[in-house]
């Protein structure tokens, strides 16, 4: 198809106008991030006597070192580590249990199959925010407050991934399973040798989405990590604000905010194609 058809796409002045508006839009959307970055490179006095500068200062290393290794309640490096464990735990955990249960639902007929299917389907409907009080009691009852299991397990109890894999498994040609069965391959052989390799792209796309979902959790870690050394970075930022009238340590807080967004931004930008695909798939 003629790329330069000239009928629909803009040329000359119109093209420049479109670019200019687009750049303006990007700048407006980036402004909060830019300001946070600038604030993370200047000194506290420069911030508390407004207006703050709009170009970066020279305290980049000092502020980031202070945040990473001293922090306010707990070093930010610790919170980063906790977030990483939580995000990867949620992504990997959910992918594993969903692959297994989707395989069982698609390739077997067994008692209560439909009951289980509907049970899993129901979990689609209820975000953790809605059942926080009783879920908190369950976790407290298991002694899982301030643990990684407590952070991870309640958030992998949902069915989105199971559905996605179920839909995908249904598109795998029956001939493959037939051939495996004729060859006398055991179901798990078929699962490991055929189904998982074929699902690679889906697994990767889902990993991107779930990693960000896990990393960006706020309410749940806020409730169950009472010990600062178990705080995740996204919920820990709010804890860095002083109660009462003390002035917040803005450079350190803004450095922490920047650190909190770097891992998910890297994941999204570097795996953009997979991310967009995962987004479209998981919302369908």
């Amino acid at each position: 198809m003629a790329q330069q058809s000239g009928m629909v796409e803009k040329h000359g002045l119109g093209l420049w106008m479109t670019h200019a508006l687009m750049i303006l839009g990007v700048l407006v959307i980036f402004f909060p991030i830019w300001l946070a970055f600038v604030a993370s490179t200047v000194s506290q006095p420069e911030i508390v006597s407004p207006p703050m500068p709009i170009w970066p200062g020279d305290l980049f290393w000092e502020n980031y070192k202070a945040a990473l290794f001293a922090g306010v309640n707990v070093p930010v490096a610790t919170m980063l580590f906790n977030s990483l464990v939580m995000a990867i735990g949620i992504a990997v955990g959910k992918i594993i249990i969903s692959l297994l249960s989707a395989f069982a639902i698609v390739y077997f007929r067994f008692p209560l199959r439909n009951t289980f299917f509907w049970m899993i389907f129901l979990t689609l409907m209820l975000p953790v925010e809605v059942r926080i009080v009783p879920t908190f009691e369950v976790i407290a009852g298991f002694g899982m407050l301030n643990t990684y299991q407590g952070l991870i397990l309640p958030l992998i109890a949902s069915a989105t991934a199971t559905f996605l894999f179920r839909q995908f498994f249904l598109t795998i040609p029956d001939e493959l399973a037939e051939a495996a069965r004729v060859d006398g391959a055991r179901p798990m052989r078929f699962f490991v040798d055929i189904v998982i390799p074929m699902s690679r792209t889906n697994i990767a796309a889902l990993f991107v989405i779930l990693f960000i979902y896990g990393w960006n959790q706020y309410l749940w870690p806020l409730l169950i990590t009472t010990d600062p050394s178990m705080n995740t970075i996204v919920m820990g930022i709010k804890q860095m604000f002083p109660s009462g009238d003390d002035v917040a340590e803005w450079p350190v807080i803004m450095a922490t905010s920047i650190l909190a967004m770097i891992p998910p931004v890297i994941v999204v930008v570097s795996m953009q194609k997979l991310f967009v695909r995962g987004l479209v798939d998981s919302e369908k």
Partner: protein
Amino acid sequence: MEKRVIFRGWALPLLLIAPQVIISGIFFFYPAGQAIWQSLFIPDPFGLSAQFVGLGNFEFLLSDRFYRASFITTAVFSILVTLCSMIPALFLAVLADRLIKGSGMYRTLLIWPYAVAPAVAGVLWLFMFNTRVGVVSWYLGQLGYDWNHVLNGGEAMGLVVVASAWGRISYNFLFFFAALQSVPRSVIEAAAIDGARFWKRFFSIVLPLITPTAFFLLVVNVVYAFFETFGVIHTITAGGPQQSTTILVYKVFSDGFVGQDLGSSSAQSVILLFVVGLLTVIQFKYVEKRVHY
């Protein structure tokens, strides 16, 4: 749709499905059941026993001035977040769609805010509008406008809406852009040959073709505003001033954990459960069939 080829045996599949069923049971069905059960009781102040009140908690909630106010707050908040995130996203997507080159680069840049957690977005916007150090509030002050979202409920609402909508612009942009790209060029060119100008083409051809996507985004954004904006509100306003930004999910938290009113909090959870159920049904019934990628 069912598979024709299946494996025999039922012990293995039960074993395979067990992890998900057990985790859902312990961390989903049991707590959800508890929420429903507790919503029928009023615990005594020491938490030692509970008195059965039937639907009393619900009756109380529905006649409670603050709870009804929270419903309205939630409705206003969701509508504003949806509009403030969809309109700029559509505008940017239309611009990007007109470019032959460079749209990929803009897309990469515009994806960024999606990765920023709502709670972190809250901190960024709080910083810009902070009454003491905020750049934007300082410049507003220079222009003679005294910004104070800590005292002014309308300003507080505006701030949480913008902070919540900001990250969603990326998300909506991706879907609108994909939808616009899938509108057949031939149709648009045919209209152009017939002399239809850009806006005429946009409203009479493009917009109807992307309506399914817009409708889908509408539902998804309302769900987002209802349930995933807790972080924004907790970091910026903590529901204040005078509960002017206390949305329903925030109220479940503040009544249940801060106020320790378990019966009421559980009843609120159950009401939210119905809201989610309703939105899910709408999504499946009306959206599922109409959205094509």
